[in-house]
């Protein structure tokens, strides 16, 4: 394999369209579509006593108004995406609620009209009578279970899971030192700049459904729609066009609109579209982060952790569409890069009358990292040991891989770290951080983390050399800005010996590649990237095979360079990929582009049929990569901050990241992922808090009040890399999508505690929270 493109800072190939305003996001698609909007519950918990849509239906320009009774799937509980044996009381919502609503924002009715204005006007006329029920909000109130979110779920407990490695009780008892700590995390939201949107068209003549959806998982949506509507998968096309950021919550199966828009299009015989507004995004799109942790840690005189017990409540919201993935990840990721000889973790996933939860960039890991890092800081403080030194003493060492943690991972396997060098991360970060700036109220923070990335089950790719010599490549996963078209082109270009500009990548379009899972969990480069490499290598082998026959050379003596297959050491002897593409397809009729060379009277005969047994036409291949388990990326962040003692304004003076995602395909893209992740982490650490009141109303459901950082809040970030290649996949890569965000809360918390001397045990903080803490 050549390595000309792999590792290079190749500028993004997807930029030009987007910069010229010629991107194609779902709401950009019109084609005469009817427009729609949803009627949503204003109550967090209420019984619906009546729904009257007659006034809405009477509005001129309204085409249809649907409630649950109008839907053939109206009585169907939507799927639990990822069932789990411990999820004993999993519950999902119905497409449209007709009996009980369990969060403010739950969909009740769906209005389709000639224009969005008319749909919204008519939605206001849908009369829904509610009988309010007691509201359960916050994880603690959910666990106290004075009231139930679901009548048939005792204690509001969706699931409970206990895992233990070693004997924690005995180890705690015999430990020279013990501490008990409590950590609390409030909800936050991903807030991609593009909200969600769906556009659908039904062709009656072809009996084919076409759906454009701002989803992170079009292949799954297609599978679900084909089951629900009784159509063969070949009659359902789902395309994620340009998607304006995802960060996790754009995967569901299904959000109600993902059924209603296609259903209405099939019913009405016209394209139908729905575009979310920002306010409904805040209440109707999945959230994350609400957890409360009770920790007991035992350690020796040197600060080495001997035993760790973590018991946490996970606020799952009103339903469990995503199963237990979030608390399972948290439970698995608390120990992080440290040896914890005896580890016990129990969680309870509790229902509350808040929006359901599913992964948001970091997905259970920022909490886990905060718990472990803050615990180590607390040990360091008690023993008066430097915070860096306490980490050195507890690190898993580079010679201890593979390292089996013994707890469950989200793919059903046990957590096994495949490679890494945690001490090197720390030392490099400290060197980059440099001396402490002078001045008062300055604090230093430190956080080290691991991240299970590249989770299976698989992704695939199709790679084809066209008769023009250009290469097209497709995979099932879509991009939401991660530069898939660039990095996958790099991988393919190296295997085929062509330029990146010669490779055109398509993702997230089931018409081009129907199989796959989705873009999430820092898995794109690992799963689809390796699938691209494997598949392009299959194409390269086929090209060598055909060229070998033509040139009468052993394929092992051939190489792919400069768009040709050449004899090694004889650059003059070769044949272009374009010509090989022609020759790969024995044809009867010449149709231009050199195809006359492959017709039956022109092509050079060989014994047997033109297409020998086992051969397939075309210079193309379809291949898959399925990881044996996750590959574990890691990193260390460190920062200096200053906190204004009067206003409690946070100023990040310096922020450094040392990152290890194995071999880097494109450092430019990885650094972009890290910079963006840190910005989201800073938001989650200090600014972004979903403020629910006791009635379950989200009081800050707008960008006026939910404070996403602007440029003024995000510092320059210095990034360093180390590379410990993954032994698990051909490219040696690990995921990088979530790395930036994971330790930021722990770092900022540690730095603020250092600056102000107040104990920091929660996320997010805020100037008001620091004011309150400073008065304790």
């Amino acid at each position, binding site marked *: 394999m050549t390595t000309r493109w792999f590792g290079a800072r190749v*500028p*993004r190939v*997807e*930029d*030009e*369209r*987007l*910069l*010229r*305003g*010629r*991107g*194609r*996001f779902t*709401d*950009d698609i*019109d084609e005469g579509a009817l427009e729609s909007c949803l009627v949503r519950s204003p109550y967090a918990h209420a019984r619906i006593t009546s729904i009257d849509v007659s006034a809405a239906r009477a509005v001129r320009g309204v085409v249809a108004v649907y409630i649950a009774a109008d839907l053939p799937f109206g009585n169907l509980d939507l799927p639990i995406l990822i069932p789990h044996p411990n999820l004993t009381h999993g519950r999902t919502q119905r497409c449209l609620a007709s009996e009980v609503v369990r969060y403010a924002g739950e969909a009740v009715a769906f209005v389709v009209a000639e224009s969005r*204005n008319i749909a919204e006007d008519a939605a206001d006329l849908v009369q829904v009578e509610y009988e309010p029920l007691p509201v359960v909000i916050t994880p603690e109130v959910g666990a106290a279970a004075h009231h139930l979110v679901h009548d048939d779920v005792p204690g509001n407990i969706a699931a409970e899971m206990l895992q233990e490695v070693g004997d924690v009780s005995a180890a705690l008892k015999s430990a020279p030192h013990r501490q008990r700590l409590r950590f609390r995390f409030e909800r936050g939201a*991903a*807030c*991609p*700049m*593009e*909200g969600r949107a769906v556009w659908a068209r039904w062709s009656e003549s072809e009996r084919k459904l076409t759906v454009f959806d701002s989803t992170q998982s079009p292949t799954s949506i297609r599978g679900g729609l084909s089951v629900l509507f009784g159509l063969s998968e070949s009659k359902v096309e789902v395309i994620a066009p*340009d*998607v*304006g*950021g995802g*960060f996790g919550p754009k995967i569901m199966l299904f959000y109600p609109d993902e059924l209603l828009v296609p259903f209405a299009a099939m019913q009405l015989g016209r394209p139908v579209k729905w575009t979310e*507004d*920002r306010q409904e995004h805040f209440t109707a799109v999945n959230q994350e982060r609400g957890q409360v942790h009770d920790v007991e840690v035992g350690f020796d005189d040197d600060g080495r952790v001997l035993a760790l017990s973590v018991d946490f409540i996970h606020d799952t919201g009103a339903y469990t569409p995503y199963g237990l993935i979030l608390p399972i990840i948290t439970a698995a990721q608390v120990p992080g890069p440290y040896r914890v000889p005896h580890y016990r973790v129990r969680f309870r996933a509790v229902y509350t009358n808040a929006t359901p939860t599913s992964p948001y960039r970091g997905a259970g890991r920022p909490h886990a990292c905060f718990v472990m890092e803050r615990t180590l800081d607390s040990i360091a403080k008690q023993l008066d040991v430097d915070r860096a030194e306490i980490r050195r003493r507890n690190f898993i060492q580079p010679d201890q891989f593979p390292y089996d943690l013994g707890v469950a991972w989200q793919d059903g396997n046990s957590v096994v770290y495949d490679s890494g060098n945690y001490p090197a991360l720390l030392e490099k970060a400290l060197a980059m951080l440099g001396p402490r700036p002078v001045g008062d109220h300055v604090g230093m923070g430190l956080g080290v983390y691991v991240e299970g990335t590249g989770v299976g089950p698989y992704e695939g790719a199709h790679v084809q050399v066209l008769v023009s010599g250009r290469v097209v490549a497709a995979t099932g996963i879509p991009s*939401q*800005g*991660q*530069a898939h078209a660039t990095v996958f082109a790099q991988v393919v270009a190296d295997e085929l010996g062509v330029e990146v500009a010669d490779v055109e990548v398509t993702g997230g379009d089931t018409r081009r590649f129907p199989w796959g899972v989705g873009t999430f969990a820092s898995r794109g480069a690992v799963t689809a990237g390796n699938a691209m490499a494997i598949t392009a290598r299959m194409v390269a082998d086929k090209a060598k095979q055909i060229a070998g026959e033509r040139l009468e050379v052993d394929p092992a003596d051939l190489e792919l360079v400069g768009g040709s297959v050449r004899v090694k050491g004889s650059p003059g002897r070769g044949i272009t990929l374009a010509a090989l593409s022609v020759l790969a397809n024995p044809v009867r009729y010449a149709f231009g582009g050199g195809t006359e060379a492959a017709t039956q009277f022109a092509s050079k005969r060989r014994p047997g049929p033109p297409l020998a047994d086992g051969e397939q036409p075309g210079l193309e291949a379809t291949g898959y990569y399925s990881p044996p388990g996750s590959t574990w990326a890691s990193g260390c962040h460190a920062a200096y901050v200053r906190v204004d003692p009067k206003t409690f304004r946070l100023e990040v003076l310096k922020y450094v990241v040392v990152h290890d995602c194995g071999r880097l395909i494109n450092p*430019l*893209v990885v650094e*972009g992922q890290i*910079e*963006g*992740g*840190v*910005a*989201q982490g800073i938001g989650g650490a200090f600014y972004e808090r979903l403020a629910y009141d006791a009635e379950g109303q989200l009081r800050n459901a*707008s*960008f*006026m009040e939910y404070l*996403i950082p*602007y*440029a*003024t809040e*995000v510092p*320059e*970030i210095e990034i360093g890399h180390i590379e410990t290649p993954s032994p698990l996949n051909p490219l040696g890569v690990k995921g990088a999508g979530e790395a*930036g965000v994971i330790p930021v809360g722990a770092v900022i918390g540690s730095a603020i505690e250092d600056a102000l001397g107040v104990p920091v045990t929660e996320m997010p903080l805020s100037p008001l929270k620091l004011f309150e803490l400073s008065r304790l």
Partner: protein
Amino acid sequence: MKVNGIPHPAPTDPRRLLSDHLRHDLGLTGTHVGCEHGVCGCCTVLLDGAPVRSCLMLAVQAEGHDVSTVEGLAAPGSPLHPVQQAFHECQGLQCGFCTPGFLMSVVGLLAQHPNPTPEQIEEGIAGNLCRCTGYASIRRAVNRAAELSRQ
């Protein structure tokens, strides 16, 4: 109103926002809508050369004015505008949704401050939200755009 120099008939729907008029009546879908309450800046266009939120204006209010959108920065087939080129070189975009708004804000900024100080850059982009890049690359892109514009 003129959009990118081309005269267009007056909008007919008095409720139509300028952002929706551009996107859905004129087919200029490069202007994006991220919040519809004037905070995110995705819908930023130039009105008589100054950046404005097209979601906070009715289309009829733009009558008699010159509106510039991202589609007008560089003609199809011609090289990118220096600001677009700089965003490409510095990876000032990822998903591309907030990008047109940033580009228009930066065009407005550089028209006012051809050699912007770091503080002026901060001020100039402080009205636009980006959820992907973390802004560092956008700051770099503004500096590069100023450099390219001077050449």
